């Protein structure tokens, strides 16, 4: 290239012209993919008035021969070889795992390229509706899953995976977001979430890098600042929302790391980078298995939590294997294996006995036979919508949660 730089060469001008033509062509072009569920226009203000685009799709009548592969999007720890290997052997369906660390990631993965790559996703309550209304899930024939009959009533047809009687997946397990603490530094368990907001522990705290954390702050304020009037940590008016965001912004100097990968929290506790944190039972189980003195507790203010569903993708490439998986993962023994290894509560009533066989006392420890009151004490994840449950329209929708998290908190 010996020619000296010129202002705008002929070839550059041609390129710009071609690009301009392309822009115009795209703009005037056919509608194509996007916004299938935008029946309510640009800003969906609530679930009323929205329809699930895939509600009419036919369900499988009979489980056929397995396709040999199964592509699953799962939370870290949900595809432990302990229960995956027997499944693969029984059915011949090779499980390919893609891990996601947040509901947002799961929604994004399901949407990627218009779907069609993954078969199922183990989504939590705050992702389910978004996946459903985007048309990325399809109806499930719940009669093909015999163990469903043995589920706790609250999880048979919950509002987050069953719309108008149509199931879009099978409920899986549920659990709390616990307060983790290093027993090396805390001989007595902390009794309040206030420890992670206490400047005394600067540089020792780790919390999830997830906008839904705002609900944890709101839950804490619900009990400690009743004057704000928070009743549901996911339905916040602007003043309530701002209070929660301010609390989190003031927490930032205390934070050593906002963890995005479960292994980051495990590493940080093990190496002493953090001594306090909010996390999943999975991290607790992993640290216990590595003989680290980790403690976990649900403080006085309660905790947020999540209830997961194995949701069936609208364009699942391996539907038979997907149904076999749903059938398998709902059985009492497998439910027990997952509950004990991860540290969560199974949705199948009959899992309790099996849990105690695997680890004595685990049924009680993970509340597998707990009364409804325990269930009600955990504020399960759900998508914050602009329409509050009481019908008013002044709740803050999730996109603002994301914006606030990225610009004001982090």
């Amino acid at each position: 290239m010996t020619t000296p730089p010129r202002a705008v060469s002929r070839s550059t001008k041609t390129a710009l012209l071609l690009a301009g033509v392309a822009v115009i062509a795209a703009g005037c072009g056919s509608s194509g993919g996007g916004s299938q569920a935008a029946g309510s226009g640009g800003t969906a203000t609530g679930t009323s008035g929205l329809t699930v685009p895939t509600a009419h799709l036919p369900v499988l009548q009979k489980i056929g021969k397995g396709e040999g592969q199964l592509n699953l999007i799962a939370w870290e720890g949900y595809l432990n070889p302990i229960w995956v290997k027997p499944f693969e052997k029984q059915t011949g369906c090779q499980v390919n795992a893609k891990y996601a660390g947040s509901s947002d990631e799961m929604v994004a993965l399901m949407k990627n390229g218009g779907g069609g790559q993954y078969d199922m996703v183990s989504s939590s309550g705050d992702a389910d509706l978004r996946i459903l209304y985007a048309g990325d899930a399809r109806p499930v024939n719940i009669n093909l899953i015999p163990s469903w009959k043995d589920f706790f009533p609250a999880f048979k047809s919950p509002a987050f995976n069953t719309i108008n009687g149509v199931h879009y997946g099978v409920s899986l397990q549920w659990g709390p977001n616990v307060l983790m603490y290093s027993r090396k530094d805390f001989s007595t368990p902390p009794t309040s979430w206030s420890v992670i907001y206490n400047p005394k522990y600067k540089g020792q705290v780790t919390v999830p890098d997830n906008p839904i954390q705002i609900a944890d702050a709101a839950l804490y304020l619900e009990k400690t600042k009743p004057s704000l009037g928070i009743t549901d940590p996911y339905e916040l008016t602007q003043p309530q929302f701002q209070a929660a965001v301010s609390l989190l912004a003031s927490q930032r100097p205390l934070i050593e790391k906002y963890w995005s990968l479960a292994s980051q929290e495990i590493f940080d506790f093990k190496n002493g980078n953090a001594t306090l944190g909010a996390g999943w039972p999975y991290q607790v189980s992993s640290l216990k298995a590595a003989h680290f003195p980790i403690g976990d507790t649900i403080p006085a203010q309660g905790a947020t939590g999540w209830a997961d569903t194995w949701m069936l993708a609208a364009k699942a490439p391996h539907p038979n294997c997907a149904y076999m998986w749903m059938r398998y993962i709902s059985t009492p023994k497998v439910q027990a294996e997952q509950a004990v290894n991860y540290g969560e509560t199974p949705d199948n009533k009959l899992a309790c006995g099996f849990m105690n066989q695997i680890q004595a006392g685990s049924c009680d420890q993970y509340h597998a036979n707990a009364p409804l009151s325990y269930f009600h004490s955990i504020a399960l994840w759900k998508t914050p919508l602009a329409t509050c449950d009481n019908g008013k329209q002044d709740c803050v929708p999730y996109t603002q949660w994301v914006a606030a998290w990225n610009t004001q908190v982090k």
Partner: protein
Amino acid sequence: MESRGLRIALRIWVGLVLAFLFVPIALIVLYAFNRSNIESWPISGLTLHWFSVAWHDPAPRAAFLLSVKVALISTGIAILLGSAVAYALYKFTFFGREAISFLLVLPLALPGIITGIALNSLFSFTGIKFGVLTIVIGHATFCIVVVFNNVIARFRRVPGSLAEASTDLGARGWQTLRFITLPMVATALISGALLAFALSFDEVIVTVFTAGAQNTLPLWIFGAIRLGQQLPEVNVVVTIVIALTVIPVVIAARVAGAGAITRSARNVPVAESGAGTAGDG
């Protein structure tokens, strides 16, 4: 030219840089033997357990094979298309030559995440299904550029007189290409191909956005890292990859960087070298 003191100082610097480069690699190899699946310093104990885990685990093996497959296809495409455009740009002058040169710099000059999300948008827009094809498209794009850079640099340093002489002696275009031009650029082609293969094999950012449900080796490694239960297995796999590639890398170094035609350019007398460097740009 350099004084003895300067040479010693340079040697020390080289030693420090080498230590800097290899301490993390040494840690990777060491922690392949870690007894605990959580990494902490000092190492908690040594075991060979993870080698057998890695050997029997189908997931990293499938990921490794997919990475090799993608890298081979991408490098193959790169060799063909990269050398074609290098030859064309070197030999011919035409409208748009500068624009093409600029276009060919972009895949390496623009951050990988941009290539990744741009291709992701294109595939979503046009409905191309995410899979091995889309991964290869992503990788081949920068592989072509790597090969192109190497080959055109060689073309510029090779005297054009040889090809002319061949034609004068009656060789047809095809014969000149096969017997004169190709051997002169062969080592540049090989070193470009090897670098392209290495970059494709370890590519993660573009692949995150262009892959479907399948895993290349870097994607499997990222999944294993986020899970946190199999970190020593990751180190085992990486150690094996390093061990496997030592031999090809040594061959590449001898063929491409440290030997052959390039050296001679330095010792050519002043007049010729003056002409050479002037004609190079």
